[in-house]
């Protein structure tokens, strides 16, 4: 019985395993880009705050709309800032009590 449990366990392990290595590679690429460029998390955060201040002078954005990060998808050595724009809400005109007659 123990033998069968062991075999089943090994089987399960073999089927379940197998995706942590690619994740490690991606994480390392991002971490090393920060390390190699001397980018401490504080530096990026300061940059982000200043961008928010600058953007707010020209656009209607809040702090949450501005993101600054290493973009590992478009290439390992890019610092990408994205600013989410907020268009003013459109309102449907309230037609009180009108009836189409």
């Amino acid at each position, binding site marked *: 019985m123990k033998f069968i449990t062991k*075999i089943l366990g*090994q*089987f399960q392990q*073999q*089927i379940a*395993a*197998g*995706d*942590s*290595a*690619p994740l*490690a*590679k991606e*994480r*390392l*690429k991002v*971490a*090393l880009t920060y*390390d*190699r460029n001397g980018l401490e998390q504080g530096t990026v955060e300061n940059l982000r705050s200043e961008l928010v201040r600058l953007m707010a002078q020209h656009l209607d954005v809040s702090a949450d709309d501005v993101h600054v990060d290493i973009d590992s998808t478009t290439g390992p050595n890019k610092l990408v800032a994205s600013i989410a724009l907020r268009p003013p809400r459109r309102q449907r005109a309230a037609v009180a009590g009108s009836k189409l007659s």
Partner: protein
Amino acid sequence: MAGQVITVTSGKGGVGKTTFSANVSAALAELGKKTVAVDTDVGLRNLDIVMGLENRIVFDLVDVVEGRCRLQKAVIRDKRLDTLHLIPAAQTRDKSAISPDAMEKICAELRHMFDYTIIDSPAGIERGFQNAIIGADEIIIITTPHVSAIRDADRVIGLLEAADKQKIRLVINRLEPELVRRGDMLDIPDMLDILAIDPLGIIPDDATIVTSSNRGELVSLTATSRAGQAYKNIARRITGEEVPFMSLESPRTLIQWLAALLKRNK
């Protein structure tokens, strides 16, 4: 021809610098090269015990630096292989006892005395590391396939390049081919891509390392293990010989074969 001084370093601790230094020094000595292994981990010495020479220490590197003995007196010759030598570190001091200048002078002397000087660096990037690299003609970086070790190796490579050390090669230690095959361990191309330096060798994880160090023996001399063969190949590459890399595929068990079949047919 003047000898070569090669420093073995890593950044991360525990990745196999000392075991590597001991085994590759022995393999070089077995090829007939007059070789000395130097322990620069002052205060935490280990090269002596890994080489099985811990009972032969009379003088150490700090004695030489502080003028209590000449360099020759601190050199221990291995009785099992007379081309193999060791200069141990001091155990009751720390790394402030040696300066990079002093180390550079010692390396200059060792270059005349030995074909190969293998300097076992301590972990870290502080004084001990600085001492270990200053006299090096060549650097070997040891890493294991783990995120922590690779990150540290990358930092060390950056520091070495800034210190104008041009010849830097990588050794990947403790590879587990089974985990790599399952996709659960970084593979060799991934690590070479990330670190972007030339590979010198790949050493598989091997239980004979533990048993041989328990006995104060070296796998590159005694056992017919895969790690031993890897160390021997690396020694030959250091001397300039071209040696193809060993295949590290492990044969599949029946269960692994069945599981792979099931995965494919999902």
